[in-house]
């Protein structure tokens, strides 16, 4: 079942919104430009008992809190028969495992196995594990590793897809996560420094500029209406979207730009809206057509005079343009990362 069947907009309102967003340039209900984001309030390190934490409030009132906790766990034996190298030679080559990152999302009003939390958790986990670097940093030795628990709490009812909100909050929380400093040697049972000031960041900082060397990815929600591409859609705009795509991007260490690490199409709730009734088919106005004739009329109209839920998918060229807009130099992705850089704890 699609997450939102309760869109309180009539076919006339939907048609109005769709037409205004399909203009060139698009006219958004709150007057923003296509790549303009709504203002948000963000703070990090708000929880003393968590390794890392962050809280973001969007302008429409949705609020999310993310807490990151790390626990030491014993590394299980990997399966398989063929061992390419002898055990003693695998120094410095330990790779992390996907199972060491545990992302859980709590949304009020939904159970843990509803579609929305499942899809959000899967998307966020995928993006975080995509380049394999995070996994690598969780290794302590050959026998022990860190298990990272990322608990995401959405504090308000989900008004629209909360994906960008949760992704940005997770990004900030992971950036602020610190792990205690390791004192013990290579293969001993791990012993850590009690002094929290000596702890190391999970995403280590450069010594000179105090900027993180690498950053966790961010996920943005991009929607398209006709040939227009819009960022940070509000719930009204999502209700009339032709297609919605979630794109995760992270900084490319090689050339300093952004690269895409995961992409997912999201089912737009506009497909579940009810279609409007063309005037000729309106029985109250004295129409009196049979079901077959009504159907033919609606098909011929094809959404020209009244609203009709979109059919089909998104064209490849539009998809390509969406990806480019996120990752290009000076594009939206870089803007968002730049904005997050200024967040102090």
């Amino acid at each position, binding site marked *: 079942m699609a997450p939102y069947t309760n869109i309180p907009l009539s076919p006339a309102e939907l048609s109005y919104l769709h037409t205004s967003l399909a203009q060139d340039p698009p006219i958004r209900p709150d007057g923003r430009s296509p790549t303009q984001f709504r203002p948000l309030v963000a703070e990090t390190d708000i929880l003393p*008992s968590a390794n890392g934490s962050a809280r973001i409030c969007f302008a429409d009132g949705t609020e999310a809190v993310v807490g990151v906790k790390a626990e030491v766990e014993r590394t299980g034996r990997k399966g398989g028969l063929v061992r390419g190298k002898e055990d003693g030679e695998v120094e410095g080559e330990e790779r992390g495992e996907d199972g060491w990152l545990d992302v859980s999302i709590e949304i009020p009003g939904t159970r843990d196995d509803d579609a929305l939390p499942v899809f959000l958790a899967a998307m966020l986990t995928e993006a975080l594990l995509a380049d394999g670097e995070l996994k690598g940093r969780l290794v302590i030795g050959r026998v022990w590793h860190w298990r990272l628990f990322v608990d995401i709490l959405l*504090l308000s*009812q989900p*008004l629209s897809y909360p994906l960008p909100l949760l992704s940005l909050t997770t990004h900030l929380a992971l950036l602020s996560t610190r792990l205690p400093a390791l004192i013990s040697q290579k293969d001993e049972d791990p012993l850590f420094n009690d002094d929290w000031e000596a702890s190391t960041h999970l995403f280590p900082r450069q010594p000179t500029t105090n900027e993180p060397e690498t950053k966790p990815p961010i996920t943005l929600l991009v929607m398209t209406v006709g040939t227009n591409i819009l960022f940070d859609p509000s719930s009204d705009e999502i209700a009339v979207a032709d297609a919605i795509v979630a794109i995760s991007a992270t900084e490319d260490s090689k050339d300093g730009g952004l690269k895409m690490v995961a992409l997912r199409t999201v089912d737009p709730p506009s497909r579940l809206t009810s279609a409007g009734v063309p005037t000729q088919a309106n029985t109250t106005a004295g129409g009196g057509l049979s079901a077959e004739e009504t159907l033919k009329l609606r098909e011929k109209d094809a959404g020209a005079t009244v609203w009709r839920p979109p059919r089909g998918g998104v064209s490849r060229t539009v998809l390509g343009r969406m990806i480019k807009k996120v990752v290009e130099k000076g594009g939206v992705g870089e803007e968002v990362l730049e904005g997050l850089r200024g967040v102090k704890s």
Partner: protein
Amino acid sequence: MPLDSSTYALAHLRVDGRRWKELRRIHGQMSTQAAADGSSYFEMGNTKIICTVLGPRQPTKSGGRDQSREAIIEVEIGVAGFSGMDRKKRSRNDKRTQEMQYTISSAFASTVFTSQYPHSTITIVLHVLSQDGALLAACINAATLALIDAGVPMQDYIAACTTGSTASYASNDEDADPLLDLNGMEELELPFLTMGTSGGEDKVNVLVMETRIQMPRLEAMVSVGLDGCKQVRNILDGIVREHGKKLLSSR
């Protein structure tokens, strides 16, 4: 034991340097979330609670039995996995949580003027971000602030705090002192109770005790608790007036 490691025997100071009658640092804010009808953020030491109130509104479960003459108060408590020292994901249906929900719901049902809103529901959602003792008390205080922010009419604030006794520590029970506002470590070791009062006449709305104590000690604990609740009530009142002043001056 927390009292052993502190200088309590010598100077009557607890682990965090407080005396027996001192509350922890209390901090509260109202209207923290624009999307809810009423919201608040409340800290009692390291215990941090976010509360949102939705309502009075139409009941979500339309069961057909809509003959209620009063508003129904629903409480939901979600304890975050990162709230304690160890990461533990608490399910929403375990008995302890349900008991706390019921306690808060019945406490407010007696204070809120529910007869003014028949056929409606007031939903209080509490998120525990960090716990370090006084969980139920902080939840009640946060809910009070959020209900006031939502404009729900009530007879008075419900102010809550915890009190304990050094009875298990002291060798001679006559020396046992009542303590106000225990933190997490102390709650694990010492007997304590949670008390919520409303109104200047010291009407006790909530009294929950899950540990054992000898009867003579109870009176001292309760009287210290009443005094502590009065202090908390003054703090809550201060927060509400501060918020009101800000609202009026911004017009």
